[in-house]
């Protein structure tokens, strides 16, 4: 290895070791300008770094899962053919059996299995293609129509994008990264593997350029788009429509007729996609005063997010693996109105969970706010105390959101927490209860004054990249 190559590796190590100083960057630029070996090594290092995420990220697990399903299916079909040849009796029975199977799997003597492009996670309430989904997951194949008659389901593509589909909905995966939405609502969070993902509707095409967005198509084929984060490129399908291509950015919306004409006045509010956005964040249902903030606010410090009618629910870290055991309030505590009602529970190390923060601060001290939150996954525990919240901020908090500071809370004699968070007073007037289904949290909280109520909710995370 040449001197230049060795030097660039050292500098690159400094750069990627968290030392992104202009001096280091300029030293790299000077070296690659002067020394060809350094230049080549630098390019190779960067290419390795860019390609690594594609090789190792969680998408591998999804692909493996789909691959396993394909292998299982192929193996079962091989067994089928073996028995067909070896026993005429079994062959006759199998012939009848195959006749009952979907005939489009057979093409002459050759077995054609359309490519699997995505799967739908189990959902007890959903009805897919006329069948209650229950605890099964369903594979979505290339070119096969998919009909969701009831409920909301989570579709995961083999590129690891998550798409929430809301009934009534008809769609088809035309090919990898191309989904044809005939009718219904979807909310998509597109992974980096799937950048360029296309949603085709009767009158328009939407191309993801790295984003979260919602698309709705009505029975007549009118479509509308709302971008929650990033950029989506939109264009009419028919060239004759004479409509220009559009770039739709965060917070913007757009609507097309089935013939590809832009129709701004028909736009509905982005809240139309709220149910899908909730599901994207593992929230199945919200009632009354609970208001989901899908994009984290800058701060949940005292004095921030004051609202007399809303209890805010903010998704925090997902896929957290507990590094050590953690004491929480058990979901089996029942109705909690005072400290003595709490049953504590130690969550073991390595538990995988996702975190959500409840935040309430009002100016109105008289009117309690209430509501329920039903999560997709079971609640593992609650953090209600001031100390517990401070202790878990580092593990579960979001980097972009400022959390209360211990010294400020103490010096200003503020309170943080709920029920047992108020400096030992057990008469906060708050009621917190995890219902028997263990997925639903019921809240009745009295805000007001200088106090602000916060609760951290830890929910099971079976979809962790490392598995559970």
């Amino acid at each position, binding site marked *: 290895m040449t001197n230049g190559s060795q030097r660039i590796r050292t500098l690159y190590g400094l750069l990627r070791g968290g030392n992104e100083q202009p001096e280091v*960057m300029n030293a790299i630029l000077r070296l690659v300008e002067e020394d060809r070996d350094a230049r080549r090594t630098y390019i190779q290092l960067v290419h390795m770094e860019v390609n*690594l995420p594609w*090789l190792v990220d969680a998408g591998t697990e999804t692909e493996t899962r789909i691959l396993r399903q394909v292998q299982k299916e192929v193996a079962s079909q091989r067994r089928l053919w073996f028995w067909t040849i070896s026993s005429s009796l079994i062959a006759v029975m199998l012939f009848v059996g195959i006749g009952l199977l979907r005939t489009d799997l057979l093409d002459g003597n050759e077995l054609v299995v359309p490519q699997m492009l995505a799967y739908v996670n189990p959902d007890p309430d959903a009805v897919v293609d006329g069948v209650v989904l229950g605890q099964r997951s369903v594979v979505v194949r290339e070119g096969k129509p998919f009909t969701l008659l009831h409920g909301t389901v989570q579709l995961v593509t083999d590129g690891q994008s998550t798409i929430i589909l809301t009934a009534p909905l008809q769609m088809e995966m035309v090919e990898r990264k191309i989904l044809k939405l005939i009718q219904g609502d979807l909310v998509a969070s597109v992974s980096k593997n799937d950048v*360029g993902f296309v949603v085709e509707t009767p009158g328009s095409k939407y191309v993801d350029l790295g984003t979260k967005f919602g698309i709705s198509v009505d029975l007549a084929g009118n479509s509308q788009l709302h971008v929650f984060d990033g950029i989506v490129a939109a264009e009419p399908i028919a060239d004759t429509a004479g409509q220009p291509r559009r770039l739709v950015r965060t917070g913007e919306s757009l609507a097309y007729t089935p013939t590809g004409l832009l129709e701004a006045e028909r736009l509905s509010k982005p809240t139309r996609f709220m149910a899908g956005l909730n599901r994207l964040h593992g929230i199945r249902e919200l009632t009354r005063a609970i208001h989901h903030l899908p994009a984290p606010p800058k701060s949940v410090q005292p004095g921030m997010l004051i609202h007399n009618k809303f209890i805010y629910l903010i998704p925090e870290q997902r896929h957290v693996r507990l590094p050590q055991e953690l004491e929480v309030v058990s979901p089996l505590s029942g109705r909690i109105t005072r400290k003595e009602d709490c049953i504590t529970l130690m969550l073991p190390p390595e538990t995988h969970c996702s975190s959500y923060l409840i935040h309430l601060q009002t100016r109105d001290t008289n009117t309690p706010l209430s509501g329920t939150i039903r999560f997709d996954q079971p609640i593992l525990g609650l953090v209600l105390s001031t100390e517990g919240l401070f202790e878990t901020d580092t593990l579960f908090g979001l980097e972009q959101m400022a959390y209360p500071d211990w010294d400020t809370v103490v010096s200003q004699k503020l309170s943080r927490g709920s029920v047992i968070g108020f400096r030992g007073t057990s008469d906060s007037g708050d009621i917190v209860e995890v219902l028997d289904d263990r997925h639903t949290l019921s809240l009745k909280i009295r805000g007001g004054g200088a106090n602000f109520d916060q609760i951290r909710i830890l929910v099971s995370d079976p979809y962790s990249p490392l598995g559970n």
Partner: protein
Amino acid sequence: MNHHIPGLSSGSHLDFVHLWTKSARRVHAYLLVLVMNWSDAEDLLQEVAATAWEKFPEYDSSRDFLAWVNGIARHKALNSRRKTALSLELTPELAELLEQEIASEAGTLTRQLALLQQCVSGLRKKDRDLLQLRYAPDSTMETVARRIGRSVAACYKAIQRIHNQLFACITVKLSRGEP
């Protein structure tokens, strides 16, 4: 190399998606070579995609798509450097030189990718898990540190060690002429 897809009309929407999908990672790498910061490169990549999509009707399909889109990337990277407070010594000439070098190294880089896959498979499970966490969507070194209960500095070191190991593995395989 002509990246035009036969059977599709020039400048069609699907054409763009296919071409972009094929080129995106290379454009990303070029941007990272120029701006060195991962999140800046990702932000710029999105801007490049948006501009390329807008200008796609003007794209001459007889031209190399990657070269065309890299031109947009270079322009964006140089512009962003001007906007930031960082006084980086990235000149248009150096940006072009790096692009030429990438083009001349294309064969090596393709082989490197195949070898990288082999080298990743050869990592210990613990190291693969760590990479998986590091490169999960929206992951940062801080979130990784939180999740595994180690310091950020320790995580940087661990990832750096794995990168070094992988690069050494690729270099050895390349020098042996392994496919």
